[in-house]
């Protein structure tokens, strides 16, 4: 079940996203930060982006952080990716009569992905993203509260490793 607020947010996100897909993508500004392959193939990038955002959905993280880690995959396994996305669209048409990216419900998209999650294509994307997305230092502090390397600051002595007050009980 999605709450009305979530539905609104995801709808807004969805509109932004499909707007980008509808040919206006390169004028939105953000896409100049996309990796070169994504700028060269914006349609492919858009489809992969929808997939990546459904695998590890973080609404506040910008598109380029999903696309950048996928670069080696596009370089080394381009055919697998194209074929996988086409297969996903075929399944989307069978189930919902439209492309995968045109399915509005995140729940319905996730259900489709659960059907293919054991396949080579899906796992290639997931395994690349799970390492690449979460190994992006610019995202750590703001989105996850992880601080990364600490030895340069002398570790956490006097910096909050033993200051917890359990006041919620």
């Amino acid at each position, binding site marked *: 079940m999605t709450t009305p607020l979530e539905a609104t947010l995801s709808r807004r996100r969805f509109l932004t996203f499909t707007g980008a897909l509808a040919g206006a993508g390169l004028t939105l500004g953000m896409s100049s930060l996309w990796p070169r392959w994504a700028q060269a193939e914006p349609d492919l990038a858009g489809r992969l982006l929808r997939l990546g955002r459904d695998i590890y959905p*973080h609404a506040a993280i910008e598109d380029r952080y999903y696309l950048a880690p996928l670069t080696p995959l596009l370089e080394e396994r381009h055919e697998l990716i194209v074929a996988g996305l086409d297969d996903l669209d075929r399944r989307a048409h069978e189930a919902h009569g439209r492309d995968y990216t045109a399915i509005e419900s995140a729940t319905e998209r996730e259900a489709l992905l659960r059907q293919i999650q054991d396949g080579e294509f899906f796992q290639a994307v997931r395994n690349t993203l799970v390492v690449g997305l979460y*190994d992006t230092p610019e995202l750590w502090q703001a989105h996850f509260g*992880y601080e990364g390397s600490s*030895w340069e600051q002398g570790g956490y002595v006097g910096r909050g490793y033993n200051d917890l007050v359990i006041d919620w009980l």
Partner: protein
Amino acid sequence: MSTRFEHDDDGVVVIIGSGAGGGTLAHALARKGIKSVVLEAGKRYALEDIENDEWAMFEKISWLDERITAGPRQLTETFPNLPAWIVKGVGGSTIHWAGVALRFQPHEFRLHSEVGDIAGANLLDWPLSYEELEPYYVQAERHMGVTGEASGMPLHDWNNNFMVLAEGARRVGYEKLRAGPMAINTRPYDDRPQCMQAGFCMQGCRFGAKWSTMYTDIPRAEATGYCEVRPDAMALTIEHDERGRVNAVVYADAEGNRQRQRARAVCVAGNSIESPRLLLNSHSALFPDGLANSSGQVGRNYMTHATACVFAEMPKPVNMHRGTTFAGIISDEARLDRSRGFVGGYTLEVMSLGLPFFAKFMDPANGGWGRDYAAILEKYDHLSGVWICGEDLPMEENGITLHDTRKDQYGLPVPIVYKGDHPNDEALRRHGQQQARSCYEAVGAVRVFDVPDFPTSHNVGTNRMSARPEDGVVNQWGQAHDIDNLFVSDGSQFTSSGAENPTLTIVALALRQADHIAERMSRGEL
């Protein structure tokens, strides 16, 4: 570092591996004036090479040569080529270990006598009692700088992660809660600085506050002039003379050239996959089943600890990544108490992972993704985690074998690492998961979830000690039953796994073995 021994010098002890077993042994022998050559398969690293970066260090120091994970366990699916998470480098897995330095309990050396036969398990008592090993535990604790009585260093302050778990543990009635013992300095000790609570213990300690042979035993052994360490030297086979005594080790050097180092004695300390693999690969006309294998036990009885992780999301930030990685220990369940439905015990050890590793390891199976998954990761700073370190029963079918056709970069058969659970392991794990869950629920967790075990860093048992030659590979000194100048000096000589992290016991055994080797040399027996 300047000492060089000739390849045809047959007066040296050749030690294979430079970690907790091999590094400790080389240093202890050097202090007695006994010459050794240490063959280390990996590179030599400096403290400046150590980064607070999980994936970078994983790629830099892990043993990533081809291995095959096998057996009815999730790792076979999720990490088909990475059964073990150990190090290839000078210092071995003491670079990666988290510093937990618990002694085995007295009854754990005689588990078979305590519980009798158990169907499906290959239980055996150690040919060594706690009382015999105790003086070496004290020596090891002083040597490594283990917080507590032996070193005089106080235990660490509790970090936030342990405060959360310990509060829950107190509320469910646990009493044995300690932030140690750890081989991590709480004040300057042994010419090494105190811990800065940086986290990243398992990526190597940038400050050198955690004991590792990388920057203690190895350089100190070299400084005596009695030890030469050869990095990038992968042992291929151990050779023997016509009487069956070992006399040389053939290895591949950094350029891939074969070298042959003559030896007075050979000590194998390559961790529980490589050590039996080397003995099996050293088969000959005299020893067709591999060296020291008249019992057929080389490579068998592979144990990893019965483990699992439980993580919890707390109502407020915990910042588990701050401070030592394994910061506290609960020992109430370490006892032997069959009323729980299993033999052996377990320790609960509070643990943390950084975000990059946690994202990967929270659920490495194909289904580890989606909105719930991402939602937990967005609460990363609210998480607390605990690792279960439980007795893993030896089973003869669990072990290391050699692949028929696949070869690694050295031309050696790829090892197959087979491991399944005994029903006792499963019962212990379930109990541990439930108790950990209860602790977190008692301290108000928002949600609690199981995390599967990782590629294991605790690998023991594949060249086990036994009183009788037909039951195991080595005697109570780690000396092969079959070959009197061949020794096993790492965790593969463990007869059982205990409920404790293995490193302290490996070091104690290595110190004891050094005394034994020196004594036999002085009697002219080696």
